[in-house]
């Protein structure tokens, strides 16, 4: 296992390297830079802007900029943000990452707690009304764009019913302890549901079909032939096996969640990595874009590695060496 992880890392590092070059090239190809603001203020002397460009190294040839960036990364520093003046990229990421993590964890929680049981239930009751309901729900979950859902959710749950706040991460920056936790949770619900919607549908359909597959497998027949109760057959023999493919899905879930977070965070004004990335893109903040890409690349790698490890835990047939 350790060898396997090591090998994966060895493959990954050069790939990450290539990716940073690609992203950097892409980023520097984009016209404009962080100093061409959204609204021009004629009181700012263009010469001063030019000096600032020089000072920030924006006038260096791209390869020099890249090497500079890389040497900073080598020292564990992701560089200084260009748009958020005076802030380092890692500082920015750390300030936003928790929000995206909460959001992702919560939406994953919703996915697993709603998606999996519904899928299992539908598989057990195949061809019943409940099954059709769940399947249809799954189809809709995949067909409704999540921003559309978000707008509807804000409209109904925040403004009509007043159940959940429509915006932000917490109602006051000054509360702490349990109250803060609950308050944050309260703010997580709508964005979490939005982000989780498609995943719920996907996992539900997936686990349903996996369950159906496993339910018709030989060893389930063996278990029944041993006189095991239906509950044992479904929850012990079938579920464990049906979960295995789900793990791969989970490995890639990090990436999916971050992508989804871009839109979700925008609608709910939820200051996380997705929103930060969008800001970075809109303002040509290359170090920020690269830093986030790097972070997410690493996260996805770790996610996949974790999935592989979980694989080995859940499925004894798999041993990596």
């Amino acid at each position, binding site marked *: 296992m350790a060898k396997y992880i090591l090998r994966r890392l060895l493959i990954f590092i050069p790939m990450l390297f290539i*990716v940073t070059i690609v992203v950097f090239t892409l980023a520097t190809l984009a016209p404009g830079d962080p100093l061409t603001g959204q609204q021009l203020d004629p009181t700012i002397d263009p010469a001063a802007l030019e000096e600032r460009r020089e000072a920030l190294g924006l006038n260096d040839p791209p390869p020099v900029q890249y090497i500079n960036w890389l040497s900073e990364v080598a020292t564990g520093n992701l560089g200084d943000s260009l748009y958020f003046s005076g802030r380092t990229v890692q500082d920015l990421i750390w300030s936003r990452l928790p929000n995206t993590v909460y959001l992702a964890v919560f939406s994953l929680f919703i996915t697993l707690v709603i998606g999996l049981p519904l899928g299992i239930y539908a598989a057990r009751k*195949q061809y019943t009304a409940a099954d059709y309901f769940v399947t249809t729900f799954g*189809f809709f979950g995949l067909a409704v*764009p999540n921003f*559309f859902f978000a707008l509807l959710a804000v409209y109904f749950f925040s403004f009509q019913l007043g159940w959940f706040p429509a915006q932000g991460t917490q109602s006051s920056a000054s509360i702490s302890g349990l109250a803060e936790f609950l308050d944050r949770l309260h703010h997580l619900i709508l964005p979490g549901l939005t982000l989780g919607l498609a995943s719920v549908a996907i996992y539900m359909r997936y686990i349903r*079909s996996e369950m*159906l597959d496993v339910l018709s497998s030989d060893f389930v027949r063996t278990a029944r032939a041993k006189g095991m109760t239906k509950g044992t057959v479904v929850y012990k023999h079938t579920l464990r096996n049906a979960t295995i493919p789900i793990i791969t899905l989970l490995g890639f879930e990090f990436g999916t969640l971050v992508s989804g977070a871009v*839109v979700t965070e925008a609608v709910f004004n939820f200051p996380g990595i997705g929103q930060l990335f969008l800001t970075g893109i809109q303002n040509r903040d290359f170090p920020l874009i690269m830093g986030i890409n790097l972070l997410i690349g690493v996260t996805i790698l770790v996610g996949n590695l974790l999935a592989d490890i979980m694989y080995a835990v859940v499925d004894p047939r798999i041993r990596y060496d």
Partner: protein
Amino acid sequence: MSGPSPGSTKQVNTEPPMPEAKEQKKSYSPTKLIVKRFFANKLAVAGVFMFLLVVIFSFSAPLFVEHDPAQTNPLNTYAEPSADHWLGTNSSGQDNFARLVYGGQISLQVGVFIMLIVSVIGVVLGSISGYFGGWIDSIIMRVTDLFLIFPFLLLVLTVVTILQNVNVAILVITLGLIVWPNITRILRGTYLTLREREFIYSARAAGATDLRIIMKHMIPNAIGPIIVNATIIMAQMIILESALSFIGFGIPAPTPSWGAMLNEARSLNILTGMPWAWMPPGIMIVITVLSINFIGDGLRDAFDPKSSRK
């Protein structure tokens, strides 16, 4: 009797261990069989029907839409529905109904063309990778890894930013070039299994060239996964285009698209006060994606009866 419950809309496809199927007296080619199975699936037929409606609705636009979707009228912005403007007008006074209809063309074209690009790349690279294996496979797989490391939307945003002024064609090509790795991997997997099938060996034993094996034996047998994945991609891309438009990175004005129309509802005022402006495009997206997914599901079942209702 425990057949399908009343009112069920699904064909029962579970194949029990059975004596050789006796009902097949007539001679059907595999394609005809698939078509037959497909049309026996009520949901799939409903999907086809819905999809055709959307297509007809969108592409017969010149026949019944009086307004030019791009024609602005600053004197008549945010108009309510009227006999002239069935769905009112938007913030530049453009006719919402015309935009809905013509927007359908754009959304569908985006979906279809990306699907075509991705399928072609996927089939070509998947074939090469899955059939030849070896170093070429390694290279292709590492490249797909590269793409898969990054969240798709972030990559799209980065690229769209560089291309600055995006039009439909550029957007389609860009998305196509970004989306291909997924389908390539899936098809590679299909080819890997196919490669070990005995009829491939028998073709090789007969002296068939690699090209012939790929064209005559591999691709026709991978057509199921190819088509099914193509429908999935198409549905995903229609949603993606609307999401991109929503965050302002999609197809720019004045080209109408459903996503752009929804983006105009990004104000509570419009959301609550002008449902006619955003409900129709929202519903159209849902209907279109839903119908494509129904079709995709039906195709999957038709191609592979054992995978019923996954």
